[in-house]
């Protein structure tokens, strides 16, 4: 259950293994029992014998089946403070990608009264106060007064969770008998400049997400998926109250699998109060809404109030523009992802994709999270990755995932993105060999080239470039194993990173043209 969407999926044993029988997404606010009953009835309509075998009967019987439930919770607010602006920036970067909405201030930019007002605000549920380890000279002269201020706030609001990071740990004594407080006082490592992840981020995520939280379960689900597929998997979620990014890799040589999870409330589809920055970012990705800022802001507010309403026609384009803007914010708060080896598979999940056509989802992901190389995209269409991730026992989780892996992912397609081509002339050619047939394609930089490759079809794509390009490694000749999807095989010959015209009309034409390549199959 999410803040905007309620999804029910029916999983049953058929043919000796677990199968996804069906799924139904509805706007939040719909009665959960009605959603489950409607899902059960549809399963009966589709295959009465299978439904009977699964003990699903018309009416209310589906309600009695065992349930696995996860909930995405609204992010809470963390006040981030430090003695200097230089010290507060890495703390904010770490907290913002760790499941918290943040407000921040430092001794440089805020007087004690303003800082007290910020910390006493009713919406603040925790305080992260940090210093370098050891503190720098500019921090040391302010640390004493700031510690006294925060200790006083901690005394006034005993329910607040206080995290003392880095050099602030030395000031634990100022907080008195911390064992008697209702809220915890915790010690954490210092934030690392330019690397927002790490141990402090792990601690903050642990504090931010309740145990039944969908985004927490998304991380463990990603790990199980990576182990079952034996591939590097990235999961990208855009939701009503935030976005999440999980990077999972299977263990190598009997080692443990790895997981990096980032939860970014700023990457919400429609932020609560869309400022000019948010509106401008959405308008960049919209061919319809670019000209009228006020109208666009109104529509973003409406999207926040009723996320499922007005989803047709220009409402659909608004959602995809807002989704791209949210993906952009997610990418900005997780810069360390750019330095990693690219994933083999990117799985999109979240309520925002529930009403979008599959090729549009693939294009949105490719537009924003683009990097040179080849990558397969898939959609968690029934939203069961997080519920599967919530299964406490790792072996049981893997067993379920093994059975369901073919059902849970809708293949969107494979994108091949070479970088470093010279514009204005043919960059080379492509031959796609599949099942004894061949497709030939000339590669013109600046656009998208589509090869119709249906879901489940494997092929080899052989690229011959005129000049050396970056495609994983550098070279002129590449042979890549690809698989089809709802969007087929897409060769993305646009710039990396994507450059869009400043003029709204030109930008709109370009966005429409790219969209039409995937929707109608017309090359640009």
């Amino acid at each position, binding site marked *: 259950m999410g803040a905007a969407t309620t999804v029910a999926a029916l999983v049953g044993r058929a043919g000796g293994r677990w199968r996804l029988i069906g799924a139904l997404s509805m706007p939040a606010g719909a009665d959960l029992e009605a959603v489950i009953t409607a899902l059960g009835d549809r399963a009966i309509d589709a295959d009465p014998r299978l439904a009977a075998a699964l003990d699903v009967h018309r009416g209310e019987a589906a309600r009695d089946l065992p349930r696995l439930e996860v909930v995405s919770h609204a992010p809470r607010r963390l006040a981030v403070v430090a003695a200097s602006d230089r010290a507060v920036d890495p703390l904010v970067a770490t907290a913002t990608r760790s499941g918290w909405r943040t407000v921040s201030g430092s001794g440089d930019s805020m007087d004690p009264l303003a800082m007290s007002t910020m910390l006493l605000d009713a919406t603040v549920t925790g305080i992260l106060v940090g210093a370098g380890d050891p503190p720098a000279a500019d921090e040391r002269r302010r640390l004493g007064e700031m510690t006294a201020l925060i200790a006083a*706030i901690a005394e006034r609001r005993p329910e607040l969770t206080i995290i003392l990071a880095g050099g602030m740990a030395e000031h634990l004594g100022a907080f008195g008998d911390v064992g008697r407080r209702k809220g915890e006082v915790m010690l954490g490592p210092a934030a690392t400049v330019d690397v927002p992840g790490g141990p402090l981020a792990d601690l903050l995520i642990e504090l931010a997400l309740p145990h039944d939280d969908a985004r927490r379960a998304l991380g463990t689900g990603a790990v199980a998926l990576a182990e079952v597929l034996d591939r590097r998997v990235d999961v990208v979620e855009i939701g009503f109250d935030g976005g999440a990014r999980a990077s999972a890799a299977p263990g190598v040589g009997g080692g443990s699998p790895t997981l990096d999870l980032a939860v970014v409330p700023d990457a919400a589809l429609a932020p609560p109060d869309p400022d000019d920055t948010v509106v401008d970012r959405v308008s960049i990705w919209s061919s319809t809404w670019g000209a009228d800022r006020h109208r666009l802001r109104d529509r973003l507010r409406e999207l926040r109030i009723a996320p499922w309403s007005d*989803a047709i026609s220009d*409402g659909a384009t608004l959602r995809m523009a807002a989704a791209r803007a949210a993906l952009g914010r997610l990418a900005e708060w997780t810069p360390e992802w750019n330095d990693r080896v690219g994933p083999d598979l990117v799985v999109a999940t979240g309520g925002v994709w529930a009403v979008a056509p599959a090729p549009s989802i693939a294009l949105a992901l490719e537009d924003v999270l683009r990097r040179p190389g080849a990558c397969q995209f898939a959609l968690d269409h029934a939203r069961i990755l997080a519920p599967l991730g919530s299964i406490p026992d790792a072996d049981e989780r893997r067993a379920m995932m093994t059975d369901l892996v073919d059902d849970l992912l809708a293949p969107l397609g494979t994108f091949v993105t070479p970088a470093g081509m010279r514009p204005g002339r043919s960059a080379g050619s492509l031959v796609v060999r599949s099942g004894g047939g061949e497709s030939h394609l000339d590669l013109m930089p600046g656009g998208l080239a589509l090869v119709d490759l249906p879901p489940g079809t494997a092929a080899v794509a052989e690229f011959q470039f005129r000049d050396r390009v970056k495609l994983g490694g550098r070279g002129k000749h590449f042979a890549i194993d690809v698989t089809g999807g709802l969007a087929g095989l897409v060769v993305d010959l646009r710039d990396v990173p994507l450059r869009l015209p400043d003029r709204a009309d030109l930008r709109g034409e370009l966005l429409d043209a790219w969209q039409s390549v995937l929707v109608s199959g017309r090359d640009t």
Partner: protein
Amino acid sequence: MTTLDAGLVPARRLVVSPVDARFALVPGDRALVSPGDSVVVGAPIIERLRDARLDEFEAPDGVDPIPGGRWQLPVKRGDAAGPTGETMFFWQDRWRVTLGDVADAIESPFAGIVREVQSGTGITIRAAGRGIPGVVALGGPTRGRLQTGAEGELRSGGIDVGSAGTILIVGSRVDAETLTRARAMGISGVVVAGLSSKERRDFIASEARQRAALHRLPPFAVLVLDGAIRRPLAGAVQAVLAALAGHEVAIVTDPPMLVFDRPNLVIPDPPHDLVRIRSGTLSGREGRFVKAVGPRRFAGGVQLEAGLVHLPDGTMAAVPLGDLERFV
């Protein structure tokens, strides 16, 4: 149609009870009530500092200050008690105390029981009565006699000085100029279905300018019931508002709500199949939900779960379930 079918339509509360309203405090503000206190309409609950500043003091002998407590300043002349401030924190042998010279009193807009007081943070009062929830409220807590106004869009010229002290229901939409004029003419508040982002921004800027002038502003609030685009008030909400017309009501901002205390007012449950179309070409219309018809393809090639709605003119329409709402 089954009740379960209608259950697929997102539900919205028509009236909520109990109402716990929160009044924010900032350092320096003085709560004039304590938990458990009973407050009446118009009772002062907060003394709000306009010009808070932080001063340093040494604690008098025999006094053990605590953060968040009141700091009693010495009497300058006469027998009256001296001014007080809010104790903040202790640093380098001196206490930091928030003080100010000018304070405004904030009154409770409804009767109720004080549930919680946290100095510097807020006061929570449980209202005696019920509330109609909105999506946002701008301004501050206010109260007045509810008066029905224009059905469509209210223009600034349509405001009558005879409406001073009332809370006006203005229908589908209102602009910032009308809101500013309403406040200037002594209107206590406005209830509106939609307020666009531009008007909202202009009104907030106007409020900020007024406050900066250090004049005490009369209480005024704008309660937005639906959203940011033009649409008429829902029929079920209109019926409750019509029943409350002529009676005292209050607007609170956290949560955004119109609060009324009429225990004898019976509000019948809206029919379970009554739905309202929030958006799309039929926006604002209401009808009877017939049944859910499963996924349908709509304009732009979008596939959405849909429901059949029987409209009052006798026609039927297939509407995305996400565009519908029902009141409970």
